[in-house]
């Protein structure tokens, strides 16, 4: 669809995916979606989580609807966020805090964070101090994969579960945890199927459409998300849509949730087929594998620490290895690194990642942006130049 003839903002020729509208509707109304409102009105609990190192399954097993706290899906004034977090914290943190301070997340019964990066931990500190959500918990997340790190993280996850049980005056059983793991694993398998479509030379779904699906994934109950995702996959199986582009691209870097940003790349003729973001593969990448006789909590802790890593983890080579593996799997021609300003872990990794990708002849375009950005003329120009460079190499 995004071929040379159609690249200048012309309408792509394809049949709209009906199920996608469900996800788009959720994203448009978030955080005040029908499902969240309904659960809240019925006296159910809704908790927000701040980072992919928070095991959502524990919240789900406690009968809670976990939703990811995200900021505005557009660039907007962040006056309160700036005043509380200062300008040099990433705009994702400031945007989330702004929404919290303006009561957009007033329905939350709890907030759970992790000690993942400076922005995330300070967002948690200020949330706890100024927003007044009834329950708060922050997990220590080790930065290593060693046996000791796994033991520590397991203990942290156990403490989190106990804290939650005490707060809600309930017991979360292993059976309930197993049920939640199964449900979340189903989500991961279905997303893997969705991504398999993206491996095709002419995928039936665009990168921006996939972003709509992913955004909805952490804003809906997994039960209904899975139901709709299955329907979308059926639609895709019978779809005649076939996107093409000047180059197959992978997105890598900071948290990104705005499909319009990906559209802006696709409008230049880039075919976005893969990603390495905490709203995409780093969120759903790995399954929870429970070994026979193993406590489910142990399997959960192992998965969350070993999952497709954030740039915070050490050694960074593990993240680079996974990126290279993904790039090869999806046959990408180039990587667009999008880093939110003041997102230090990804900024630090960039020189080394660029080197590693250059070693396998994959060029990198580095874009600094603000969270919620839908792209700009300057970004479009740079993407065009990048695509021309890739085409010239072919």
């Amino acid at each position, binding site marked *: 669809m995004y071929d040379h003839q159609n690249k200048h903002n012309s309408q792509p020729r394809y049949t709209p995916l009906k199920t996608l509208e469900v996800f788009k509707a959720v994203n448009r109304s978030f955080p005040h979606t029908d499902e969240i409102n309904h659960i809240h009105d019925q006296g159910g609990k809704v908790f927000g989580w701040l980072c992919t190192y928070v095991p959502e399954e524990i919240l789900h097993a406690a009968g809670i609807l976990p939703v990811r706290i995200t900021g505005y899906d557009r660039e907007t004034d962040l006056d309160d966020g700036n005043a509380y977090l200062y300008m*040099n914290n990433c705009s994702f943190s400031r945007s989330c805090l702004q929404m919290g301070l303006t009561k957009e997340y007033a329905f939350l019964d709890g907030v759970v964070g992790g000690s993942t990066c400076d922005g995330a931990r300070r967002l948690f500190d200020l949330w706890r101090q100024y927003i007044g959500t009834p329950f708060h918990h922050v997990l220590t997340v080790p930065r290593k994969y060693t046996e000791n*790190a796994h033991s520590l993280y397991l203990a942290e996850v156990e403490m989190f579960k106990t804290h939650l049980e005490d707060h809600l005056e309930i017991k979360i059983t292993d059976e309930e945890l197993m049920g939640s793991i199964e449900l979340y694993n189903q989500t991961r398998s279905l997303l893997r199927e969705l991504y398999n479509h993206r491996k095709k030379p002419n995928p039936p779904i665009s990168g921006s459409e996939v972003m709509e699906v992913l955004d909805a994934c952490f804003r809906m109950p997994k039960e209904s998300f899975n139901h709709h995702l299955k329907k979308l996959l059926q639609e895709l199986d019978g779809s005649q849509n076939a996107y093409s582009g000047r180059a197959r691209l992978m997105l890598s870097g900071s948290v990104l949730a705005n499909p319009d940003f990906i559209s802006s790349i696709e409008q230049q003729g880039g075919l976005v087929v893969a990603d390495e973001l905490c709203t995409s593969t780093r969120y759903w990448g790995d399954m929870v594998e429970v070994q026979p006789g193993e406590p489910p909590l142990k399997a959960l802790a192992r998965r969350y620490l070993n999952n497709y890593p954030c740039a915070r983890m050490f050694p960074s080579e593990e993240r680079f290895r996974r990126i290279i593996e993904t790039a090869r799997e999806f046959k990408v021609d180039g990587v667009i690194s999008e880093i939110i300003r003041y997102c230090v872990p990804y900024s630090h990794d960039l020189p080394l990642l660029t080197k590693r990708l250059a070693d396998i002849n994959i060029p990198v375009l580095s874009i600094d942006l603000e969270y919620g950005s839908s792209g700009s003329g300057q970004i479009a120009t740079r993407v065009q130049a990048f695509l021309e460079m890739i085409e010239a190499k072919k």
Partner: protein
Amino acid sequence: MKKAANNKIQSIVRACRIILRMIEADPNTRHSQKMYYRMLLQYYTRLRDARENGQFIAAHTVFFPAEILLAMDIIPMHTETTTWMTSLFTGECGDILAAGARLGMATEICAPHRGMAGAFASGALPRPDVMVWSNMVCDNTAKSGELVMDICGCPGFFIDRPFKDSGLEKTYMAGEIRDMIAFLEDKSGKKMDYDRLSTIVERMDRQIELTRQVNELRKNVPTPFSPLGFLELLTIDYLFPGQPESIEYLETLKAELEEMVKQKKGAIPKERFRLMTLFIPPMYLMSFLEKLSVESGAVSVIEPFFTFWGEGRLDASRPVEAVVEKAYMIPETRMYGPLGESALEAIKKCAREWKVDGAVYYADVGCRHSCATIKLFKDALAEVDVPVLTIDCDVVDQTVTSEEEVRDKMERFFELLEDR
């Protein structure tokens, strides 16, 4: 190596020598201050000559437990301090920051870390034999080691300091330290001398205690310690943890301050404003800030996150555990864990007990985790009626603010304090 034109260590050595010559000729200079500069000269001369002397060099980041290196007779190279010292003594870090930019480091990355990488890449610092670092106290420290390893082609070890302070977390960190010792033994061929480590820990405990006593003396009105003297306390902990020189320096300083208190003599002729300093002033403006302090009668009397040590003692009979304990007592690490009531209470306590009139927050644009506390700290200090001045700056990058801008802001703040 030491003859290289762009060698920053040599530049620092040269500047230290000149300053030392000047202050040694000045009868009014504190004896402890002379000792301090001699210590700096010693640190950087030893580092400059390490390669020629066949010594093993470990580059390390801030708050890394250098006690371990010293106990193993390894030459430490404190990377961020070296960038600061470059700015302080040469007044210019532009070349190494530009070299960092050429590596692809974004301007949002903390300038001392950009400078450090740039300095290694441009040969302005000696190539270390190993890079060792930790996540104390921010993402920049956590992420800076791997690029240095790549630039210098040296092996490295990262210590993961957990976020909270439970017993489990401290045990985890002790395991990290033991693994790092094994790494250093393997790479350097030197064995850890645990008796020596115990001695260093014992002295570190004394060093902390002396710093507390110095701070107690600073409570006096007028305060006896120089307006920005706290940087000396900070630097000796960074560069000489648990070393005999530190004890000698602190004991001398303490005696000097006691004498001044006895004589009811202040560090500056007319003390008008007692300040709390939050974060680090721009290094390249230090002479100007000293002068402004004297002119305005403003003196920093306490720094909750730099000199105000957490409670506790170090147990020399369990030296590895003591090193971990120190990692949780370091004043700035109070900002690393969850920022709860205890951190806010500590600030209020400092304001009350040191009779603080106002606080100056040096908002370093490259330091996200500290700047995000400005609102929290302002609100906490408002409860004890202490106004806060925020100065946007960078600890080494001169392009962020100027002397004029800082003077203007400071003078207005002093007017406000006077009106109160």
